[in-house]
């Protein structure tokens, strides 16, 4: 039984369907990566898992509990963390305040969690009094991930975390994401950098036109000649 099980999702933003029976599953503490060509519905699939669009068919269960009808906010309380692709920090607030806002729904003491985030992203500790809007792209992504980790999610969803950052920063971000997964948090991630992402993926999904085209482990997809030729550029 997968920790996250989003099965047969069909729906869109109103009007035509974007997803056509798309299925995504993530096991506990594993990394699942969604790749595919532009317009394949990768981000839409992720948003559907998070409840940001209405599904006509299909269901989403988290840890065995059906959450199909819940709003994004309610899903956050159920243990989902979401890092949007853009506008994912509070630019005029300091790094520390960004993390505090991430923990807004928590009524307990969240200093331990903040300490963990700082341990994971040491640069954020150095810049904790600086405004998030003044940081570099890679640092801002770290703030965004850190903010989402503040609720202590069991499933962390990342929409193209490496968009617009340099290859070196990308490698570092992937390393951090692996570290997060090692702490037992499941990760569902949409990535443009398909090859590098599949290298760290336990499970890979290749979406085309809102439906699953290939589903296998990351390593198997990388080895598949069809996938390589069509989606990974040889």
């Amino acid at each position: 039984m997968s920790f996250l099980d989003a099965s047969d999702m069909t729906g869109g933003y109103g009007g035509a369907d974007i997803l056509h029976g798309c299925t995504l599953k993530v096991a506990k503490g594993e990394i699942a990566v969604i790749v595919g060509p532009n317009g394949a519905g990768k981000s839409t699939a992720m948003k559907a898992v998070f409840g940001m669009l209405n599904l006509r068919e299909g269901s989403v269960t988290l840890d065995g509990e059906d959450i199909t009808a819940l709003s994004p906010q309610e899903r956050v309380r159920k243990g989902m963390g979401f890092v949007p692709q853009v506008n994912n920090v509070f630019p005029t607030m300091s790094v520390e305040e960004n993390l505090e806002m991430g923990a807004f729904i928590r009524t307990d003491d969240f200093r331990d969690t903040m300490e963990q985030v700082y341990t994971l992203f040491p640069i954020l500790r150095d810049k904790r009094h600086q405004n998030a809007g003044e940081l570099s792209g890679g640092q801002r992504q770290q703030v965004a991930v850190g903010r989402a980790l503040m609720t202590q999610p069991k499933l962390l969803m990342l929409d193209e975390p490496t968009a617009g950052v340099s290859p070196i920063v990308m490698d570092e971000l992937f390393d951090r994401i692996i570290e997060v997964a090692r702490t037992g948090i499941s990760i569902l991630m949409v990535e443009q950098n398909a090859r590098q992402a599949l290298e760290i993926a336990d499970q890979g999904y290749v979406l085309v036109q809102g439906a699953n085209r290939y589903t296998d482990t990351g390593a198997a997809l990388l080895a598949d000649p069809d996938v390589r030729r069509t989606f990974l550029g040889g």
Partner: protein
Amino acid sequence: MDLLNALVAITNYIIIPASTYGAQLALGALGVTLIYGILRFSNFAHGDTMAFGTAITIMVTWALQAGGVSLGPLPTALLALPFGILATALLMLGTDRVIYAYYRKVKAKPVTLVMVSVGVMFMMNAVTRFLIGVDDIKFTDGERFVITARGFKEFTGLAEPLALRTTQVLTLVMAALIVAALFWFLNNTRTGKSMRAFSDNEDLALLSGINPNRVVAVTWIIAGALATTAGVLYGLDKSFKAFNYFHLLLPIFASAILGGLGNPLGAIAGGFVIAFSEVGVTYAWKKVATYVLPIEPDGLLQLLSTEYKFAVSFIILIVVLLFKPTGLFKGKSV
């Protein structure tokens, strides 16, 4: 001696009045900028919100005066101010519940909300006139001066007088306290931070579990309190007239936009820049020039007659919108 006289004249006719006026504009602009940051529209009803709050405060002041209550050297209106704030906050929350909430629910465009606020402005203006009439009302009492013109001349032996009114000191002290309290609230409390987060990035704030209704309600209450305080201070300093507050809307918006809409620090800076420009441009510099320059100038050296003082705000507003729409302090573009 001439140089000293010139300095005293500048202080008396420019620095003191412009600082006072600037503080009043800053308080008004803070309310406008908060509403813009959180609710994302320019609230045209803000001037009449000030008028309403001041009208209530004046009526409570009259009641207190009739009851023989006074604050000694300070104006009685200070005691009435909390009542005015309370009434205005309730009016704000009521207006939001009855009118604005609907337009948020249907996700109306900002320009629609602006037009709605124009409607609210007319309503509030009517309510204020209905409550207190259209007359010019002076409601200040207590000690009038901290430094009197004659006292200053006798004390220093200078030719130029310098007067400092109680209401001017009061305005500056109150404005400083309120601004400090507001910034402390925004930077250090959970609710204040959630307001800044909501202003920064509404979607992410919602994802973080921040309750939008609470943020909006707190914003209205604070805007109401700021508007009432600004209105009462302005009324004490000059006089109360229902229509005057409508005219204040232009310099207030100019201050908020000049500073950068949505940026509280900018609103304060904007208020003072506008006030000093307005007073500086409409002041007859002849007296100062006579002291400083070797020859006596012919004209009054007044750039603009006082009737046209609003043109100053208007010109600054247009220049800012044309060349730096985000304002001096990196606010949101209009």
